[in-house]
């Protein structure tokens, strides 16, 4: 299959590597020259062509060969750019299948409603697998039996959260409360005091039952 990939960062790089091994013909677009060269040097050849340019620009998509593409996969770090690449591909160039990556899991629904065929969120996926591997209900039941007042909760850091952009040692969590892990861009970080919380981080937190609701609503940036 002939596939256009927009975005040659880490996701794009490994996507090219994986898909070329399956004998797909890849046309990669990235606006950063260094990233283009990295992929050209590593994989350039009969199966991988690299175009330096803006993957949300119609002319650039034409140069890359979009008229021959059966699918477009947009995996830049910018959701809005991924959306526009997919919409141009589908609505204007008639590409059959479009796939977009979103960082913010809230955007999955938005992208689907705006016509992208498949939407991938690594954050939601990892958070989902944490959810399924560690059933909070079971953990909490266990905790209730062993130590009556301790619970595990998870919450997504909102842009408006007072914790957004702060280091953990700046936040001043109540005594006895600990952030167990921070899921960010598809990776679970085991934090320390220097770890900075950012919007869209998924935070798993362990602490005293009576302090948790306040901290959770702070993480979510809810006005109390």
């Amino acid at each position: 299959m002939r596939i256009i990939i927009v975005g040659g960062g880490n996701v794009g790089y490994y996507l090219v590597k994986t898909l070329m091994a399956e004998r797909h013909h890849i046309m990669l677009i990235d606006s950063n020259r260094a990233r283009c060269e990295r992929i050209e040097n590593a994989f350039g050849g009969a199966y991988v062509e690299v175009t330096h340019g803006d993957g949300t620009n119609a002319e650039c998509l034409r140069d890359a060969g979009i008229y021959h593409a059966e699918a477009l996969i947009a995996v830049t770090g910018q959701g809005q750019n991924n959306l526009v690449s997919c919409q141009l591909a589908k609505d204007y160039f008639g590409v059959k299948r479009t796939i977009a990556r979103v960082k913010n899991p809230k955007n999955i629904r938005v992208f689907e409603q705006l016509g992208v065929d498949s939407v991938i969120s690594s954050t939601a996926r990892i958070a989902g697998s944490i959810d399924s591997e560690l059933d909070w209900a079971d953990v909490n039941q266990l905790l209730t039996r062993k130590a009556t007042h301790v619970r595990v909760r998870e919450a997504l850091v909102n842009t408006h959260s007072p914790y957004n952009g702060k280091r953990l040692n700046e936040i001043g969590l109540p005594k006895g409360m600990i952030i167990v892990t921070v899921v960010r861009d598809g990776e679970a970080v085991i934090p320390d005091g220097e770890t900075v919380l950012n919007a869209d981080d998924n935070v798993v937190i362990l602490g005293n039952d009576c302090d948790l609701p306040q901290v959770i609503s702070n993480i979510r940036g809810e006005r109390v």
Partner: protein
Amino acid sequence: MYIIIAGCGKIGANLVKTLSNDGHDVVVIDPNEESFAQLENGTNCLTITGMPIDEDVLKSAGIEHADALLAVTSDDNVNIMTAQIASQLYHVPHVVTRVYDPEKDEILQQMGLTTVCPTMLTVAKIGSLLNETEVS
């Protein structure tokens, strides 16, 4: 009218001024708080710091009962996404998108968006100024 303006650059700030002077209720969204310094003192509007493509930010700006949304950030794709969230997900009656890229502008019009392309407006204006000087 209740109007949301996404982007508080030169165009955004001037839209805020004009529209609030005309008696509209105006909310302006920008990810950088410093951008609001461009608003004139005493301008009557609400400011919200955040990314306009974030549905929660749009909700806090009152998108559910907005009469109009003007997407005028400096990033074409942010404008396009914001405008589509407003028109297709929240059915805001009047949505205008600013797009610099002329070809993208044409495509978006075909897709049914209402757009303004400063690039082509400038080109057209300069062209007509040249024609005027030729005539005189």
